[in-house]
């Protein structure tokens, strides 16, 4: 099979577009080739990310235009502006409190940071720990929280017998209640499938998906640093 053909077949498999007769041969190829396995995994990740980025939401609902509807819309707009001008003073007094509440909430979340590492790289490991320590020192307040989140090769930082910083991580965790190390379960699962058992350093936490973990917190206003 040519390389290009293989790639397109992989996409077709991921998209559930293949005839059932083609699937067994392709699966045999994939089973025998770790490169194809990794490629298929990447295709599925990209698919998931695209779906995640475009959730199905209500569009700004405009009823199909009918002439009477447009006319009534103009009348309604005039009424809205008239009534709106009377109620503006009341609205301002209520929205002000809501806005202040939101600002306070965002400020509280801004004490929290995520450091994301996705590579097995000694230099990046070192940078990650230095950055975590720096953030904890800089924030220096009881609400400060730092999550080191690892995915793909990055979880090597948190694996016993693999991480060059095992003792340092244990020491940091003992020193700071507000410091957390989180490993991605998708990656752990993949490692296990590849025959690489994953033993994590004590007190390292596991999230089902690093991307989702990070996305949820960024949406809440957490700081995000990618190493």
């Amino acid at each position: 099979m040519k390389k290009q053909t293989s790639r397109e077949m992989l996409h077709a498999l991921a998209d559930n577009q293949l005839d059932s007769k083609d699937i067994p041969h392709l699966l045999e190829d994939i089973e025998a080739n770790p490169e194809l396995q990794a490629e298929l995994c990447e295709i599925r990740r990209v698919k998931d990310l695209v779906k995640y980025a475009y959730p199905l939401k209500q569009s700004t609902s405009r009823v199909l235009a009918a002439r009477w509807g447009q006319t009534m819309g103009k009348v309604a707009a005039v009424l809205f502006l008239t009534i709106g001008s009377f109620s503006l003073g009341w609205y301002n007094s209520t929205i002000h409190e809501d806005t202040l509440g939101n600002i306070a909430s965002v400020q509280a979340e801004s004490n929290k940071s995520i450091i994301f590492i996705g590579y097995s790289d000694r230099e990046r490991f070192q940078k990650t720990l230095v950055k975590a320590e720096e953030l904890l020192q800089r924030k220096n307040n009881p609400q400060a929280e730092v999550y080191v989140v690892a995915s793909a090769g990055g979880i090597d930082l948190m694996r016993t017998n693999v991480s060059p910083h095992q003792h340092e991580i244990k020491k940091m965790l003992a020193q700071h209640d507000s410091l957390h190390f989180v490993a991605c379960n998708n990656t752990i699962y993949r490692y296990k499938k590849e025959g690489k058992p994953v033993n994590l350093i004590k007190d390292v936490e596991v999230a089902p998906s690093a991307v989702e973990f990070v996305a949820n917190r960024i949406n809440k206003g957490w700081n995000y640093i990618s190493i």
Partner: protein
Amino acid sequence: MVFPGLKRQLEQHRNRLYRQAYSWCGDGMLADDLVQDALSKAIRKKDQLREQAKTEQWLFRILHNCWMEYLRRNRPLTDLDSIQLVDEVSPEVDLGKLQVVEAVRYAVGQLPIGQRQVISLVDLEEFKYSEVAEILDIPVGTVMSRLSRARMSLKKNLFHLKAAPVVKQPSLRRVK
């Protein structure tokens, strides 16, 4: 032949059409206009719908035509595949600072239009390659090659978002 309840059926597709248009153009207001235009055209041309089972493809095809028409009006004499969406975020901006959703949308927006349309029709609407070919009026082979190239680019540009998002099970568990 006019199928009963067509108008209601068209309205039911509005959100999906909007998501598709938004993924193509990256602009909420323009997406809304395109969908409105497509639905109005669908109602005007309802007699052209031959098979009710193919309503979806027919609608997305009209949406595609509206988008092409918009591009022709606004970007004349330009090869559609060569058009890159310009975003206010420059390459120098650290993508790590963007939210995941924004990072993915930015990467999708960087794809040539043809690739962007194919990936959104396959990944968001889960159309078959043959249906995408019909909607966009291109050969199935072109659908496959555009899809492959689109995903290669996204993989490269989204390397920092390694793991796939899982919607359920948001909790943490502690490992002892």
